[in-house]
């Protein structure tokens, strides 16, 4: 692994007395596709919010391509190269499909307000160029025919795709996908997978994926990191993670013949164990990075 795209060290955030995420470590290399999984409420989306500057981490730091990003505002992080999609689709619903993409291009526009008001030749040139670029981008997702359609009127699967297209338009290096296959039928999921692999090949970007669909995660991710109660409990290749007893415990609970009290106790111990794993993981990664 050469210079990593994303490096997060001991990232954590506390809401009041609640440690939503603690000691989160992660290294993503160029073009890598890493999965982030865990039970509901484990803190996966919080990690995304940390990495995009929505929340300021209360501890730890992260770097994008060697530049420190923690503490920056969302738009600064996005312009630097981390873009995301949302678990519950957030499109600009009253705008057209093309406008959705053009908004994300905003940073690459260079004309200023004067040019816009007086409609200078530079304005027209740039608008025309960006229009062509937007259509090109939409073509990858098979949405070019819907450029003029209001985003809210797209089918569900297409809305998901448009959200990814919009994220791509920001010109990012790392794409964070928050449950892109949620609510999709198998055909749409299949379609989405091919889209993801196309954009990886074409743009050479790294992807961090949150997903509950295990078959999808196992199929596409090169590495997987598992969160539970805000802590990393396992990390590694898909096969390793799938057979990790802690992961199985976190997802399925302990054996049925254990009492409720025991259940809670083991749950706690698994969290403690998780911390150990996380630390050893971090150590592994540091070595790997060297």
């Amino acid at each position, binding site marked *: 692994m050469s210079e990593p795209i994303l490096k997060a060290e001991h990232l954590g955030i506390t809401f009041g007395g609640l440690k939503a995420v603690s000691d989160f470590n992660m290294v993503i290399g160029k073009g890598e596709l890493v999965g982030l999984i865990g039970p509901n409420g484990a803190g996966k989306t919080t990690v995304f919010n940390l990495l*995009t500057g*929505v929340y300021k981490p209360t501890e730890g730091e992260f770097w994008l391509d060697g530049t420190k990003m923690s503490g920056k*505002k*969302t*738009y600064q992080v*996005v*312009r630097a190269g981390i*873009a*995301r999609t*949302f678990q519950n689709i*957030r*499109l*600009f*619903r*009253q*705008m*057209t*499909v*093309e*406008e*959705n993409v*053009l*908004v*994300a291009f*905003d*940073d690459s*526009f260079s*004309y200023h*307000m004067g040019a*816009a*008001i*007086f*409609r200078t030749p530079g*304005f*027209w040139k740039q*608008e*025309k160029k960006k*229009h062509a670029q937007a259509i090109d981008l939409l*073509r990858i997702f*098979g949405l*070019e*025919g*819907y*450029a*003029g*359609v*209001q985003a809210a009127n797209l*089918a569900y699967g297409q809305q998901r795709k448009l959200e990814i297209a*919009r*994220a791509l*338009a*920001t010109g990012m290096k790392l794409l964070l996908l928050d449950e892109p296959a949620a609510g999709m039928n198998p055909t749409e999921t299949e379609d989405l997978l091919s889209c993801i692999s196309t954009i990886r090949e074409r743009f050479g970007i790294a992807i961090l994926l949150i997903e509950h669909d295990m078959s999808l995660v196992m199929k596409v991710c090169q590495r997987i990191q598992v969160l539970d109660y805000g802590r990393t409990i396992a990390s590694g290749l898909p096969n390793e993670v799938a057979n990790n007893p802690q992961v199985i415990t976190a997802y399925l609970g302990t054996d049925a013949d254990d009492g409720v009290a025991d259940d809670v106790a083991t749950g706690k111990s698994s969290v403690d164990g998780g911390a150990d794993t996380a630390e050893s993981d971090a150590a592994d990664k540091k070595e790997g990075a060297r």
Partner: protein
Amino acid sequence: MKKSILSTKQSYLVCALGVLALFLLVMAVCETGLASPYIKGIMMTACIAVIMTTSLNLTIGVLGQLTLGCCGFQAIGAYTAALLSKLIVAQGIAMSDMSRFLITIVAGGAMACIFGVIVGVPALRLHGDYLAIITLGFGEIIRVIIQNLKFAGGIGLSKGQQGQALIGIDRLANLYVVFWITVLTVAFLFMFGRSRYGRAVKAIRDDEIAASASGLNTTYLKVLVFAISAFFAGVAGGIFAQYIGSLNPAMAGWLNSINYVIMVVFGGMGSITGSIVSAIGLTILPELLRAFSDYRMLVYSVALVLVMIFRPQGIFGSWEFSLSKFINHLFYRGNGPKRGRAAVAVEGTASTDGVASTEDNATPDTAAGADDVSRLQDGVIASAGIAGTGEGSAGVGPDPNAPRDGGAMQEGDDRR
């Protein structure tokens, strides 16, 4: 790809011609004596209302933030312009009335703009109801401050009494000049709206979190919009001051602001042409209803209620009237758009995989007006065209009902 029959430049030209025709109409009505001073007064008030409403529409309709303080900015602009105008005369600075008028209204706008930034930076951290209340409070603060400023006609802090009107402002506002200022305002707002700025602002309205996740500096854009809105409100105030000739601090009150909010909602949020139509319409309506004397405010309110029940999205919704689209429509006898819509429907069901011939793809593009270039060209014309018809009727409409109040139109008082 069958597009508009007019090129971009041609449609700009059509737009300019439309505005010019309208101007000539206004001029003809005024010069031939068809328009009494009363009607000229209505036209002037309509122009002020158009500036206020379209600029407020930028904040409420396009940015999606409800503010109730627009008349606070208007009052700042009005008082700044009035006092500056008096100061220029007092200092004995030689300048033509026209340049004095223009300088003072720009100064009024600039002062309002500065206050817009000062208020906007803290206030725009909030949304919806909270922002509405903050801006409402702002308007009241302005009103009370002006009441107590001695140089602005107030009595001074010690007395604690209500201030009196600032009188003796030179009435420099000229309908023709105000007409062109209105045109410039509307043109600016259209150009702003149909550029990357407008797109960004609309994105914030639709989803602020997603907008910042798309790399937009939402705080900057919100304050920018707030400041632009305040600037034009200040300009409108400057015109108002130099049209009426006297100012009362009550103009900064929230009742006046709500009046303009009503115009925006009535016309359709986000539609500039809608704002123009409703600003003109709601200026004329109470005047037309003078025949009903005692019942006219009742009729006015009932009219508002009915429109909101049967057309909650406002008269225009988010739709914009466009002269060049209208011309297109005439040429194709209405076939063009329908064919386009059919194509969209077909495409929608077919769920094409990119192979669907390029021609097909092009059609819905134009039909839905996605093509940025073609949309850009429409906007301005729209405004001009509508402003035209609307104001034309403003000139002709109330004629038979004849003036009962002679020249002066007490704008605010009537509404209340």
